[in-house]
């Protein structure tokens, strides 16, 4: 699946829920599928410190594609990263660098996440794109 197909799948899934509590249950469900980061990578360099919860993110570069693993101390945050990883993981650095993430907006999260969370999402996305950009230059050498 392309990045956009992944996004569309998530959007479709969320259309099933109208109540916010149900949407959150779904986010938490998705969190359970998160490819967990190897504890040995839970080091300060991999920490994205949010205002209220922490995220550890680790990229692996394999066969021209990036695979992310991650974890968080908060379960909703875990769900959110899990969605991000679902969308971006397993794609080429170039695809990731160029990706436009619209699913967050479309499922209405942008407006309903607490500002700290959406800032957190943004820093997460930024971090993932930075890794992708780094592997891109590495590749082109």
């Amino acid at each position, binding site marked *: 699946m392309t990045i956009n197909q992944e996004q569309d799948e998530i959007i479709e899934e969320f259309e099933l829920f109208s109540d*916010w*509590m149900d949407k*959150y*249950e779904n986010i*938490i469900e998705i969190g359970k599928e998160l490819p967990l980061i190897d504890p040995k990578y839970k080091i300060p360099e991999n920490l994205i410190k949010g*205002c*209220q*919860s*922490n995220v550890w993110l680790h990229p692996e570069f394999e066969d021209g594609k990036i695979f992310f693993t991650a974890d968080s*101390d*908060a*379960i*909703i*945050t875990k769900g959110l990263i899990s969605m991000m990883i679902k969308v971006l993981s397993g794609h080429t650095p170039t695809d990731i660098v160029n990706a436009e993430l619209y699913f967050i907006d479309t499922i209405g999260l942008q407006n*309903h*996440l*607490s500002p*700290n*969370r959406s800032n957190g999402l943004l820093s997460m996305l930024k971090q993932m794109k930075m890794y992708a950009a780094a592997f891109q230059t590495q590749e082109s050498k």
Partner: protein
Amino acid sequence: MGSLLDIAKVRADFPLLDTKVYGKNLVYLDNGATTQKPLSVLAAVEEYYTEYNSNVHRGVHLLSQKATSAYEESRKKVAAYINAAHSYEVIFTKGTTDAINLVASSFGRKYLNAGDSILISAMEHHSNIVPWQMICEERGATLKVIPMDKNGVLQLDLLPSLLDDKVKLVSFTYVSNSLGTINPVKEVIRQAHGKNIPVMIDAAQAIQHIPVDVQALDVDFIAFSGHKIYGPMGIGVLYGKEKWLNAMPPYQGGGDMIKTVTFEKTIYNELPYKFEAGTPDVSGAIGLGAAIDYVNSIGLDAIQIAEHELLSYGLEKLAEIEGIQFIGNAEERSGVISFLLEGIHPYDLGELLDKQGIAIRTGHHCTEPVMHFFGIPGTCRASFAFYNTKEEIDLLVAGIKRAAAILI
């Protein structure tokens, strides 16, 4: 015991309490962060802006005269509310943080020297830590801390040994914003004064809940914020004893705080103006005055009784939730309940409460050292005002249960 308040009538004074969020009735339990404003406060500010908005003090015309009178009238209301000996001991600031910075800077530059120390407590808000860190660093002084125990109670037995002759000022909070502890301010002041050490009280979480009589306390400085006592944002108060305020150098320079200015020499104005540089927040001060009138009209006694009932009821009902742990278990407490649910990140719980229309606060509440002490990332904090109801607490409890079912 029944409340003295006609709660429906009281709630009608606060239009925001009628708001809906996500289509649900708002349950506002974040009063420790900021309180809602009664109509009388909004009306006073609106009246000011539509009828006599003007710059103060220097004006020859009627609007300026009216604005000046109203501004000074508010100062008198504040002075009366805290029973200051003189209204010129009341300095209008931007808020608690601004007031503490003023004292840290002005008192610190005058009295704090290398080797000296400032004594704070283990449960201070960042606003009563960082200003002291900054001035201590500048002056080569050290910051010392009165420790607390596992219940969130200050270890007063350690106070005598901490109050050595290097301590130039004790600054601590009346009520902890993250634990709810009411500190024994009178006793701390007594001991400090016994060693001739002045005391500053952070009253940000006390002024709206507890009678604060600066003369009875014999306290040297207190600070509080208007927005936490039903007044506007952007205005706060520093009370200081005349002798200290006169002895301290001014904090900010500018219009109104001077008597005469030449490029060579400037003569500072008398109190309170010496500490009020620039155009003051006249509308904020008027709003704060109206807020104090409002509190007086309800009666701080009635407020205390109502809030005490809410707190007891809240503690009782929350205790029934499986896996709940209270952070802060002092006997003497006020205003806030901090708690955690086993296995649940406070942030997750806060977010799912929000989606049910229930506003609480999560995180470190600007008291990171308290969180480090308890070894936790943060807490969930419900904080009450007299306009809250037991039904709202029931909704909170139900909301927590519903969220927990999803989160665990």
